[in-house]
């Protein structure tokens, strides 16, 4: 049995990655996630089959990950918002070449260089592909230290299962906060079943090609269809969310990651005042957990989306609700962290303005 350890969020991702069999990490320094890069440097140093490279650029880092993934390694890179922008070329190639990889984005305020404070500024970038071309990436949004560890394991599993890049979307607050964590047991990488598509030298088998150039339009269309079918399967199989006090609720707050923790505090406060408010916390941002929202919309009319940005996930909430219910928004961008009281006040005002106390 693993025991509880107190650990910083960024380092928890690193430890969980190593335990998930990650044996290749390339990264470039950027705040607020350097602790993860530093953790991987030390961890890989302690393994006889691990590789850590401090790359000369974000571009080089993601392309090294492409190479490691082609060669069959469980590979990871990490960065923060501006650095993730630079990695988008490689993420598009990972998607096109159907290569597994895990990319951690510890989001900060933006656009541009922005700041280094916790933010959810990159929801659009993460959930809409981010790079060029017709593709999706799986996006996981942990909200606690324990979940950072658990979802890092999940990220590597999904990456291999679906041969797709998987993004873990956190923020500086989650990365810096120390919490007690129970790690899953390490996986012995020798127990992984061999991958049938990797490039390791064509000995005793036909040579393989991993490519993304498909000059012939029907061949490109075939790839796009294959990806689309894969995305349909992913959309069916992995949506994840947490419902908190939703069964009797007549108003639902929707928030993910750090924002969801703040929102949960707000929901607790307004419950004490007798308001029937619940929280839906998407854990997968893509695929978005449409079903629980759709089900809630049968008896809930008022929805409040809370994000640490100017309104990005709200688009997906509206798509999931398909016009059923009123969607309100409260957001603080730029690295400002709202308090539960602030959200509680917003909930309160919507609740009473919509006469929900009479329901």
């Amino acid at each position: 049995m693993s025991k509880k350890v107190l650990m910083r969020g960024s380092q928890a991702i690193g430890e969980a990655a190593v335990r998930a069999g990650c044996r290749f990490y390339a990264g470039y320094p950027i705040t607020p996630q350097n602790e993860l890069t530093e953790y991987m440097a030390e961890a890989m140093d302690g393994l006889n089959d691990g590789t850590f490279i401090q790359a000369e650029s974000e571009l080089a880092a993601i392309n090294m990950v492409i190479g490691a993934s082609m060669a069959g390694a469980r590979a990871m890179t990490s960065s923060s918002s501006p650095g993730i922008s630079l990695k988008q070329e490689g993420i598009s190639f990972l998607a096109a070449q159907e290569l597994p990889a895990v990319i951690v984005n510890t989001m900060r305020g933006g656009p541009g260089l922005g700041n280094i404070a916790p933010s959810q500024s990159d929801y659009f970038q993460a959930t809409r592909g981010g790079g060029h071309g017709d593709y999706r990436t799986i996006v996981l949004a942990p909200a606690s230290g324990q979940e950072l560890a658990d979802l890092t394991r999940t990220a590597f599993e999904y990456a291999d299962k679906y041969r797709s890049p998987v993004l873990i979307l956190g923020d500086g607050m989650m990365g810096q906060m120390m919490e007690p964590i129970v790690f899953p047991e390490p996986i012995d990488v020798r127990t992984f079943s061999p991958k049938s598509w990797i490039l390791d030298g064509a000995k005793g088998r036909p040579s393989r090609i991993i490519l993304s150039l498909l000059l012939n339009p029907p061949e490109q269309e075939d790839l796009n269809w294959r990806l689309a079918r894969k995305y349909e399967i992913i959309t069916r199989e992995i949506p994840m969310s947490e419902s908190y006090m939703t069964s009797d609720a007549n108003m639902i707050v929707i928030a993910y990651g750090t924002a969801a923790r703040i929102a949960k505090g707000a929901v607790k406060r307004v419950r004490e005042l007798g308001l029937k408010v619940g929280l839906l916390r998407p854990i997968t941002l893509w695929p978005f957990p449409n079903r629980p929202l759709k089900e809630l919309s049968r008896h809930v009319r008022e929805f409040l989306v809370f994000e640490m940005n100017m309104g990005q996930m709200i688009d997906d909430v509206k798509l999931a609700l398909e016009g059923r219910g009123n969607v309100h928004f409260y957001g603080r961008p730029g690295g400002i962290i709202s308090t539960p009281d602030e959200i509680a006040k917003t909930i309160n005002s919507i609740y009473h303005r919509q006469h929900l106390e009479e329901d």
Partner: protein
Amino acid sequence: MAKKIFQRPKYLKKAVFHYCPGCGHSILHRLVAEVLEELDIGERTIGIPPAGCAVLAYNYFDVDMGEAPHGRGAAVATGVKRTLPDRIVFSYQGDGDIAAIGTAETIHAANRGENITVIFVNNGCYGMTGGQMAPTTLIGQNSTTTPGGRDVKRDAAPIDLSEMLAIARGSVYIERTAISSPKNIRRTKRALTKAFKTQMAGLGFSLIEVLSPCPVNWKMSPVDAAKWIDDTMTQTFPLKVIKDEVGKLD
């Protein structure tokens, strides 16, 4: 009984090259395949083709091939090689790929001393996109983006990437050769052999720059293009061993 003295190398597929008449890629592909066969390393080799004319190299080499984004060959090769250190990894890159958009990746891979082999095909232009100025276009040379000839003040001088890479502490063997005559083709093959042997011996970063004809974009006949390499191109890019910390290899 007739003795077979010339045949398709083992590691070239039975495919017809798409390259233009007189293009150097076909010859160079053949040389690389011959070297892989002679060193008996084809079954443990992974090749990284570039963006550019040679992107389709994966249709010709009968070894595992993984396409890199434009210019990132050395970074992708780094990822493969570090994951599988006992395999042979080469990247095959054009001048625009390696000396413009991928300069940083190349310099840093060389400086880290990555134990990979880079084949740098210098034809002085962007071939696949239709003959624009490359970082290696000669001063005064016409291209579709230097219609009056490359002007140093406006367009900069050609870049000496191989010489720059020789300064990098991790590079051990760098040579410039040409695909312009039987003699130079034989020298190119010798250099390629040494580069792969350098990697097999685990000595570090090796790179062979190959001056290669692009008759279509140069608007020359294949014969004139070969002659132009020898007479003109080699004045800017002299054929020589630029760095050799390897010495003799068995």
